[in-house]
């Protein structure tokens, strides 16, 4: 046995131990516990089914169950299950499912393969080409590549390599990648897809954010000034879901209109009015604009195409703990880099994976969140490794539907109050999901009373929140849950 062989063996052992925390080797090892045996009431077969559905979106095959049965009799269930999870994570179905999840996260139209159904036999070839583009474009290719190659999750923001596709529509092709990148790159041939790579420090380029599909999905106007794109970035990467204000003149909301178009003649914005600055400076609007405007400026030079030059901007926000983040960048590439360096980004992405693979009905305690963040960084933010880790947690094996009603109420209320954070943030109003609200138990009780009054639940006040111009309005079921929680004294755990 030469040293090269030994080195390889060591590497293999290291790799195996790194990618499969539940794996232990050796025939003389004591009987192992499967991940769910550690804390879960479900059987190995149920665990396998749950893992397969979570990772691939389909149930295990007959052979998988037979293999599990055989492994169980041979007392190597844990090895079998961890091997299956690795197999599932390497499957095309997993890549498809993650692509679907990301499309949903980015609020994109579902991709083509969902239409390739026997239920739609008469689909026209020309129409099918339109559908094909929804998978064959640089954004979807990036989604798939991240999963397929287990690239760091930060690639969504920091990626500088693209597969460029051409959409063969002679009439209307706003999202064709070959057009989108045409101002910064000359494609040598008309044969697509073609690879396109930018320098690692190119400030113009930021992974998913500088793809034709993202730019097309979040269109811009002279009035909007790229705030829609900025809001999408805050929602997707920092879990800061700012709600748009819908202005209706019928509802007598002239005050909001005046903030948007101050000092202008009725019905038409007048000339030479620096309305944007006044609007952005208005206290009510400032809650979102102080974050959106600096981020939006990084897209200022974008049209339908990626601009040849970067546009400076900044990542600006205030954390729940009051920490001020103000990080300028020469372009969206540098601002995206700054996002990946924030703890709020890590927490947001960890929570995203948790919701996808554990379930958003299972709350994350602060200590669990700390563990998850640590593990996310430990696996270099590589999605498949982090998913494999989540599968080893006891929460994954938990059977849903039998949660403690009190715990369920707390989880539900927290989720409902998350909507309030979309508009309320800053020094005067604390984060409603960071309990105790206001930072102490006494403040928590004060804020419970305020919430009760604002929601018209004190017996005599009219409901004031959310305001009628808010996109989100709570359902009667959601209001009932909040009332029940308030009546119970606002339990935190």
């Amino acid at each position, binding site marked *: 046995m030469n040293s090269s062989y030994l080195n390889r063996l060591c590497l293999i052992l290291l790799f195996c131990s790194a990618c499969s925390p539940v794996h232990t080797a050796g025939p003389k090892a004591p009987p192992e516990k499967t991940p769910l045996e550690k804390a879960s009431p479900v059987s190995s077969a149920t665990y396998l089914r749950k893992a397969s559905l979570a990772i691939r979106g389909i149930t295990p095959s007959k052979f998988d169950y037979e293999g599990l049965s055989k492994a169980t009799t041979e007392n190597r269930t844990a090895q079998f299950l961890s091997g299956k999870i690795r197999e599932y994570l390497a499957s095309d179905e997993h890549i498809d499912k993650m692509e679907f999840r990301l499309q949903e996260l980015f*609020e*994109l*139209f579902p991709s083509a393969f969902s*239409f390739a159904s026997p239920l739609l036999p008469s689909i026209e070839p020309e*129409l099918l080409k*339109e*559908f094909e583009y929804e998978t064959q474009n640089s954004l979807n290719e990036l989604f798939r590549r991240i999963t397929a190659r287990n690239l760091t999750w930060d690639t969504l923001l920091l990626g500088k390599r693209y597969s460029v596709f051409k959409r063969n529509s*002679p*009439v*209307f*092709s*706003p*999202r064709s990648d070959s*057009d989108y990148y*045409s*101002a910064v790159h000359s494609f040598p041939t008309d044969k697509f897809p073609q690879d396109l790579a930018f320098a690692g420090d190119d400030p113009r380029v930021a992974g998913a954010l500088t793809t034709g*599909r993202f730019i*097309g*999905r979040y*269109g*811009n*106007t*002279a*009035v909007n*000034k790229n705030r829609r794109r900025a809001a999408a970035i805050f929602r997707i990467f920092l879990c800061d879901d700012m709600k748009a204000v819908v202005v209706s003149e019928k509802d007598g909301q002239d005050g909001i209109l005046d903030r948007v178009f101050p000092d202008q003649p009725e019905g*038409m*914005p*007048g*000339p*030479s*009015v*620096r*309305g*944007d*600055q006044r609007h952005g400076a208005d206290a009510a609007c400032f809650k979102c604009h102080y974050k959106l405007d600096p981020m939006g*400026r990084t897209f*200022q*030079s*974008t*049209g*339908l*195409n990626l*601009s*040849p*030059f970067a*546009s*400076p901007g900044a990542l600006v926000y205030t954390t729940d703990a009051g920490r001020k983040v103000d990080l300028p960048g020469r372009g969206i590439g540098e601002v995206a880099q700054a996002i990946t360096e924030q703890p709020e980004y890590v927490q947001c992405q960890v929570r995203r994976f948790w919701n996808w693979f554990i379930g958003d009905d299972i709350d994350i305690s602060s200590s669990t969140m700390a563990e998850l963040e640590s593990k996310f960084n430990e696996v270099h933010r590589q999605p498949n490794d982090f998913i494999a880790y989540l599968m080893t947690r006891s929460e994954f094996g938990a059977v849903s539907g039998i949660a403690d009603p009190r715990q369920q109420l707390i989880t539900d209320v927290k989720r409902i109050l998350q909507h309030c954070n979309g508009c309320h943030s800053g020094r005067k109003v604390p984060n409603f999901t960071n309990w105790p609200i206001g930072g102490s138990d006494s403040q928590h009780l004060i804020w419970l009373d305020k919430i009760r009054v604002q929601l018209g639940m004190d017996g005599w006040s009219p409901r004031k929140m959310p305001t009628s111009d808010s996109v989100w309005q709570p359902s009667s079921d959601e209001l009932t849950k909040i009332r029940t929680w308030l009546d119970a004294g606002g339990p935190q755990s």
Partner: protein
Amino acid sequence: VRRFFLSLLLAIPCALAQPTNAQVEPATGAPILPTVTTTKGMPVVAKWPDGRQAVVRVNRFDPISVPIELQVTENLCTDTASTGVKMDIAIRLDVLDWFWIAHPDTAKIGTPLKFKRGSGEYLSYSSNSLEYFYPGVSQGLQADRMKFQDVKWLPGFDDGKLHPLRIETWTAEIMLPNPETGLNENQVFGGAFGIDAAPIGINEFSIVKMDSVFSALKSNPFPLFGDVIGWQMPQGDGLCQIAFKPELSGIKQMIDAYSAQPRTKWVEFIWESEPYTLVARDFNPFFFKADGLGNAE
């Protein structure tokens, strides 16, 4: 729902969009299809099995200048009262059509082919902006011009001197369905990066260069114009924005009148010797679709 949405997308009601030639659908039964030959340096010829032949001819109109006035709706660059800008955009129309050169009815020789559903004419508009997509199409067109009452409201022009004008990004918006959501929304439809204009007189500029042009509809001769126009101009280390509303109400009538002029200058259309061959290539399915000629008379 998706099909309905796509049909809407393909039927964009854009007054500025270039009309395509009326295309004849094949009649029921088997139309007699010609063979269309396109050879570099030669006329485009269609030959039917029964001996009939037709060629493509082109009527090249003299260019005209289309005046478009832009009113400022928002100026985030300076506080100076904005007076807007008048633009003169040069365009030229080339009409292409099929003509019989061999037919058993000799009276038809030299006349355009007739189709059951309208004219077979293909209207090809050229403009300076289209030069980016179809090199050569702007030959013979004068440069597009911008005339200001005063320029003090432009960033960097408060010194009262005339110097080159730079617009980093020019965007044009119209209301369109978003392909991802199906919702109608204002969105960028066309524009350009790196527009350089040189002073040619008092408060008057000539556009001398555009680094690149982008357009959702590449045949549109006015990719810089829509319901709303935005300029991103250099100011300090960054950019500032000026938004405009263009006055387009008279443009359609003007172009309709221009394109309705008598066709008196038909010449043979020589394949790949004229820049507009490129346009024809892009629209090959519409213009040279052989089965459309199957029922021609």
